[in-house]
């Protein structure tokens, strides 16, 4: 899956993907752009610099499907024509990733709290079959309200699933308020460490920092808590809960493009 982009090139590739993501959401008139912008850097780094052909990626926060589609577009796995059909009748590119389509989308997700257990199953399968490859699962922080995640953390640590890495897009917002006001998660590092994960905290928009976290070898499962900004890169979207839902007006789209282009 990896691309040949150098670290410097990758910044340009991400820049392009971000513009394409905004265009796709604008053309389709759909929301969820805030959480897509918070996870795009992580998805791009993972897909361009980390994932090998034996590795599996699971997008547990299925509402970031747009960012995943834009990432796969940047790798040439999806075409412009594919993206133009995003959210339209007769598309494969639904608002959440579809089942039974391309290998890069291993599982349909969208209902939260499923991806980590699915990833644990894949990691255990590889272990039992003595197969090569690692498993990476991207979760949202709000998603951690779901109890099934904590079942999966116990299971993954107990079975020492060292091929498993979970990444939390820690943008601090959930569906109807800031996390600290809805269901405060406290210190995720402390929680994951206590559950038996090796935990790293990174700036989820800093490629050098992300690279550092993924380069560390750990004896058991690994958690990367990526501090991110909802609506990253667009001033009127940053840290605003409503951009979980709102479609952009034409004027907002033009402003967003202008801000990203100047960044």
């Amino acid at each position, binding site marked *: 899956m990896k691309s040949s982009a150098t670290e410097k090139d990758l910044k340009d590739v991400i820049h392009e993907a971000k513009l394409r993501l905004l265009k796709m959401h604008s053309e389709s008139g759909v929301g969820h752009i805030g959480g897509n912008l918070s996870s795009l850097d992580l998805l791009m780094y993972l897909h361009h610099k980390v994932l090998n052909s034996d590795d599996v990626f699971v997008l547990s926060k299925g509402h970031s499907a747009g960012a995943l589609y834009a990432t796969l577009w940047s790798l040439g796995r999806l075409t412009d024509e594919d993206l133009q059909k995003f959210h339209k009748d007769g598309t494969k590119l639904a608002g959440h990733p579809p*089942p*039974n389509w391309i290998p890069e989308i*291993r*599982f*349909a*997700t*969208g*209902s939260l*709290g*499923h991806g980590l*257990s*699915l*990833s*644990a*199953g*894949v*990691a*255990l*399968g*590889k272990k*039992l*079959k003595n*197969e090569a490859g690692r498993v990476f699962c991207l979760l949202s922080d709000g998603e951690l309200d779901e*109890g*099934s995640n904590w*079942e*999966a953390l*116990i*299971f993954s640590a*107990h*079975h020492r699933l060292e091929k498993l890495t979970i990444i939390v897009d820690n943008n601090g917002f959930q569906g109807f308020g800031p996390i600290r006001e809805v269901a405060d998660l406290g210190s995720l590092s402390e929680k994951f460490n206590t559950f038996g994960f090796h935990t790293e905290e990174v700036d989820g928009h800093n490629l050098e920092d992300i690279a550092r976290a993924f380069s560390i070898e750990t004896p058991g499962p690994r958690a990367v808590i990526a501090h991110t900004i909802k609506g990253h890169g667009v001033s009127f979207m940053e840290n605003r809960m409503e951009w979980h839902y709102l479609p952009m007006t034409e004027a907002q789209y033009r402003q967003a493009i202008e801000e990203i282009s100047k960044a």
Partner: protein
Amino acid sequence: MRNVLCNTLVEHSADKRFVFLTGDLGYKALEPLQDIMGQRFINAGVAEQNMVSVAAGLASTGLIPWVYSIAPFVYARPFEQIRNDVCMHNLPVRLVGNGGGYAYGVMGGTHHALEDYGAMLGFLNMHAFIPAFADDVPVIIKKLFDFKRPAYLRLGLSEKPKDFPLPTYAPWRRLLRGNGPTMLIVGPLAGGILGALADLSESVRPDIWVLTELPISSNDIPADFIDDLRGSRHLFVIEEHVAQGGIGQMIARCLLMMGETPSKFTHRCALGYVSGLYGSQKFHRKECGLDAESIIEALKGIA
């Protein structure tokens, strides 16, 4: 049936695709399987949602996971995990629910499985297997190792009358001939009813059919069953499952679509908790009119 399940799975343990997961249940029953499976026997703890999604993940790597628990804990607790992770992806996960219907008796309603196959069959790709006799279990298990779709296996307590010669396994089997109604039974209830009805006079005695694989379509219904029904004009369905989503509704739809409409339809099914009191499986069956004695009374009333 649980012991037969264990013994049969032991025989399949050399199949490297086979992984067994239990939701922390199987004490004094599954130890032989645990011993022989080694690391492919996984006690996933009391965490059924995770267990089912893990099974889906395992199946996506080419393995065949069998997931075991008391029936409601394997189909009701992880309902969405079965729907999204197993069924939407059409993965060959086998869900084994021990204690179909009222089998857990006085343990109470939380342990009963009265809507299991109806609920499961609402999902894409799902199939249900409901052995009526212990002898059915090894045949079904063998079938499930080659079956490419999700499956739910409902186990109960076999009640086959001693020395009754079972016909070769098939999803539809005629067990007894008679001149009464055409009776279709799902699950182990068939054994007790068969034992009680075999001695009835042929004029009252029904044709007894047992059905073990769901869903059904019009094409699956054997011509002999239709012939029996055309003769009796009375369909009598018995199942330890609520009416909603049960075989009574399924077969009524099939027959209507086929233009085969018997003039009389009797449906004996689970009615929940009729008196609000709890007891053995026998107690609950009696309250619902599912016991052999109540069925005989009904047949005499018809005659």
